[in-house]
């Protein structure tokens, strides 16, 4: 690698890392929190077979899963303004990523809820607990444990997915690299550097997932 390229990488590194910590990670955390809230609510509605709402949830999951994320971003950011709905780039990204991943996570949560033995809820009733109390203390914790690997997967895929926000002008780490590259034309080196930063961070998340799974296994094998 040429000395020039090395120098460029060195100069770019702090800028990329800065964008990673100030934009990519906060964007991921906000989107993921939104997705998690959506997922739990949607999964609980379906688990409880609440009539009209269950149907709406299925429609939501169907539409989100069957359209590309990129198209969803364009639709909200470039399309909605024409009917008077104008959102800034950053909130658009949080909203679209949250709603998108929420659909996948809702399916993981629903499966996990349904895997909890039905006797658990009945046992709750028999010690005078209500549906929601039993849900909160018994059913949801067990479902979270089952869904944990799938949810971790969603988080990791979201970290990488935030790079798509670059197409709606959010300057997260990847867009920062594109901007720098526009000045210096060092694609191979720069994009490799970006890839390595994603790789490093997602590796940490993978280790955290292993650690979390071990913690959660305190109450025994899968049931």
């Amino acid at each position, binding site marked *: 690698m040429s000395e020039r390229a090395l120098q460029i990488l060195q100069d770019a590194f702090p800028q990329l890392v800065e964008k990673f910590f100030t934009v990519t990670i906060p964007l991921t955390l906000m989107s993921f929190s939104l997705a998690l809230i959506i997922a739990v609510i949607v999964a609980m509605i379906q688990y409880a077979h609440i009539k009209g709402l269950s149907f709406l949830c299925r429609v939501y999951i169907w539409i989100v899963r069957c359209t590309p994320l990129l198209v969803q971003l364009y639709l909200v950011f470039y399309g909605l303004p024409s009917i008077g709905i104008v959102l800034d780039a950053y909130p658009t990204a949080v909203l679209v990523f949250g709603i998108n991943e929420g659909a996948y996570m809702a399916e993981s949560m629903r499966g996990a809820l349904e895997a909890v033995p039905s*006797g658990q809820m009945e046992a709750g009733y*028999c*010690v005078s607990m*209500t549906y929601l109390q039993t849900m909160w*203390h018994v059913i949801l914790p*067990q479902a979270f444990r089952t869904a944990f690997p799938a949810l971790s997967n969603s988080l990791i895929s979201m970290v990488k997915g935030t790079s798509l926000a670059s197409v709606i002008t959010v300057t997260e780490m990847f867009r920062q690299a594109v901007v720098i590259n526009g000045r210096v034309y060092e694609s191979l080196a720069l994009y490799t550097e970006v890839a390595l930063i994603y790789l490093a961070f997602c590796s940490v998340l993978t280790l955290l997932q292993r650690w979390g799974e071990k913690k959660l296994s305190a109450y025994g*094998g899968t*049931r």
Partner: protein
Amino acid sequence: MLEIKNVHKSFDAHTEILKGIDLKINKGDVIAILGPSGSGKTTLLRCINYLERADSGTMIFDGEEYDMHAISKSSITRIRKKTAFVFQNYNLFLNKTVLQNVTLGLTSGRKMSRSDAKDAAMDALKRVGMADRIDAFPHQLSGGQQQRVAIARGLAANPEIIYFDEPTSALDPELIGEVLNVMRHLAEEGMTMLVVTHEMGFARNVSNYVLFMDDGKVIEQAPSKEFFSNPREERTRSFISSILKKGES
């Protein structure tokens, strides 16, 4: 204390599972329900505790009368606060320790303070001989131990009556005794119990009353001694002899 009249239940239109069951329980009674598989024993208990909604029937609990089909949620809650249910497969909360299993219903369902709940829980766990395993999770316990914790979970709330649905039939033979012992102690202390069981020893020696069900109906009911020494119905006789034969082999 508890009386039910003319309970009917079907899961689909063609087959009625309970065909008009009457049952009366006085304070301190230990009633054993016997009957062949599929006769509706579990369904009866589940209807009595409203895990299943009866199609029709009347319940009188502590002097108050309820329509078992149209009963309100708040009435169900009120009745459940005075009862406990022990399941065939224990149904301990899998994500909770032994102690938490017993306290959870007290603190969250009954709004008892943490320290009161813990005292009540330890007391109940001592009675079933599980006070030394309070930090274990259900999967770390034998079936017999799990069932004893499940009994403690019910006991801790100081119920007026405990329903048991074949509490020992999921257990290895060598673990049945420890659970039956706990139940015998409860009976001696005057606890009111309604017990679906295949344990003839328990029905004969511990329960004071036996109710024999077949095909969704009560075929015969009598004080235990009388039931075993002098069964009146032909179906009862053949059931008793078939069970005794199984016991010998």
